[in-house]
């Protein structure tokens, strides 16, 4: 099996693709930090899927007799001001975090990729105008821009996702443009064009797939920033609304009790840090494997 996967002269496209995936996989497994990051993210996904099985209590069930209890065997992370179990809320919060990062990646990455690829492929005035707009967005403060957009759209989780996506696409456009320019004049592109392929087909079928690996690296590395921005919006009361157990909003609720009941605000923060670190580790690992020349020297 391994021999078939690592065959130097694959006989089918499937074998070539599987072989490549296998090589990336084994290279990732040799990178301890990437493995740690991958495990953290797998745990996050598992928590999101199996939240009702993992969480010992309901995330919104109130128990006023047991409010503001310190961490104990019953309540691993203590309880909040309404007697809700913080650990259960953190577990359910994984769903919201995962939803936000996935939606932002699904919205922002394709928009950025297409704008960048079109810009790099056509060049000339198309390039100048599209990259002008991209640069304007890039030189704006992202968090402030997201805040202003949420202010206009109204608070809520959907609007937070839209606002973060609007501020994240320019980075992907830059990457896609840089990649596209390197192989715009390549012979395989010329060959496809001579066969009569339309520009749309060349971009979608032949240019975009080649931008995929650098975009995946960038998206993974950006995840930490997206999580922090989403938590920040939640903290300011502009993201997910109560009683949703969003981590940033939970920290905001715990603010009042920070001096006496420290666990209410601190526990969700640890979840944010852990997940962000996980994405950083995995992103660094992916970069080392997929794109060795970009890794910073260490």
């Amino acid at each position, binding site marked *: 099996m391994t021999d078939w996967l690592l065959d130097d002269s694959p006989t089918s496209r499937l074998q070539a693709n599987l072989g490549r995936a296998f090589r990336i996989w084994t290279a990732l497994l040799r990178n301890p930090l990437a493995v740690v990051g991958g495990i953290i993210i797998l745990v996050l996904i598992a928590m999101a899927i199996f939240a009702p099985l993992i969480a010992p209590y309901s995330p919104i069930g109130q128990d006023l007799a047991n409010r503001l209890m310190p961490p104990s065997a019953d309540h691993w992370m203590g309880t909040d001001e309404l007697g809700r179990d913080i650990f259960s809320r953190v577990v359910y919060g994984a769903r919201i975090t995962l939803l936000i990062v996935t939606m932002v990646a699904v919205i922002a990455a394709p928009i950025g990729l297409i704008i960048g690829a079109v810009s790099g492929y056509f060049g000339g005035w198309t390039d100048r105008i599209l990259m002008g*707009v991209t640069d304007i967005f890039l*030189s704006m403060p992202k968090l*402030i821009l997201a805040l*202003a957009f949420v*202010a206009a759209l109204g608070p809520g989780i959907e609007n937070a996702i839209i606002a973060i996506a609007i501020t994240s696409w320019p980075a992907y456009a830059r990457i896609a443009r840089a990649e596209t320019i390197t192989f715009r004049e390549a012979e395989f592109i010329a060959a496809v064009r001579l066969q009569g392929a339309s520009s749309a087909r060349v971009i979608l079928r032949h240019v975009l797939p080649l931008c995929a690996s650098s975009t995946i690296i960038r998206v993974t590395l950006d995840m930490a920033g997206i999580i*922090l921005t989403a938590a920040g919006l939640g903290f300011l009361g502009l993201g997910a609304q109560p009683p949703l157990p969003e981590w940033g909003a939970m920290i905001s609720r715990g603010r009042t009790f920070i*001096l006496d009941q420290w666990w209410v605000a601190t526990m969700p923060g640890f979840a*944010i840090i852990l997940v962000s670190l996980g994405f950083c580790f995995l992103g660094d690992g992916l970069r080392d494997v997929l794109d060795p020349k970009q890794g*910073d*020297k260490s």
Partner: protein
Amino acid sequence: MTDARERQLASQVLGHAAALARFAFVTAVTFLGLLAITFFIGRVVPIDPVLAVVGDRATKEVYDAAREAMGLDRPLIVQFLTYVGDVVTGNLGMSITTGRPVVEDLGRFFPATLEMATIGILIGVFLGVPMGVLAATHQGSWVDQVIRVLGLLGYSVPAFWLGLVGLAVFYAALGWVAGPGRIDIYYDGLLDPVTGLYLIDSLVAGEWDIFWNALDHLMLPASILGFFSLAYIARMTRSFMLDQLGHEYITTARVKGVPERRVIWRHAFYPIRIQLITVIGLSYAALLEGSVMIETVFSWPGIGNYLTNALLNADTNAVLGATLVIGAVFILINKISDVLYRMLDPRAR
């Protein structure tokens, strides 16, 4: 000989002039872009601005008249140009929460943010640069490990959370620093606002008590901001230094017997100072942005606090005004560090 020198000098001056002209053009276009975005945000706000003025029981005639008086019936492009004209002449409208013109509010709140961000960047530079150099010259040492961990934490710790934990530990538990706010309540209003920067104002007035009190309040939020820029600056310094130290001219210098201290600071560090200007500029701009969160946690009466208050009260004029100011300063710092880089680094010309 002198001819060649003169020609070289002339081309250098020309190069600088071209860089400055480019800087002015790009900055102007970016500002227009920022204005277009805030204008767009102001237009898509779901609250009908006319209804807000006339109330929802107004007749159709009154509504239309108000709409016309507010200029909302004119073409979008005319409205946008009017908006740009207003902003340029310093008219950002009235804030509904404070009841004052937004420009006046921003002028009062900005110094507090500036003071905190400046102390923050000073901490970041004066600790971050030496740490980065040390990490590069002693690869694998504890400084190197600390910087690696700090760098990772800088990307993954929410600033507002760190602020809360900092308050709980250093204010409540240890009592090392003063609590939220810019100054103790009994000093409030004693100071003539000359610059609005309490540290400078109190020094000018010779009020040492107020100076120390303001510093006490400033230390924690500024250190937390400084931590984020330190993490970034140290990481970048380390990577620039490693790059320089790998060059052959460094080996040559060492072989010639140049003292190690001189090799590090004179030969390796000297060329990277220009790259560092860009990094420091970027992190200073990021600090202004990051202060929004920190100010909320520390009840710091700065522009970030003003912005979040306005957000919660749906005070559109104030939100857009604060966005414009933070955005404009952010863009300006970015573009200035860019043009400095171009003018100082001969390779970028």
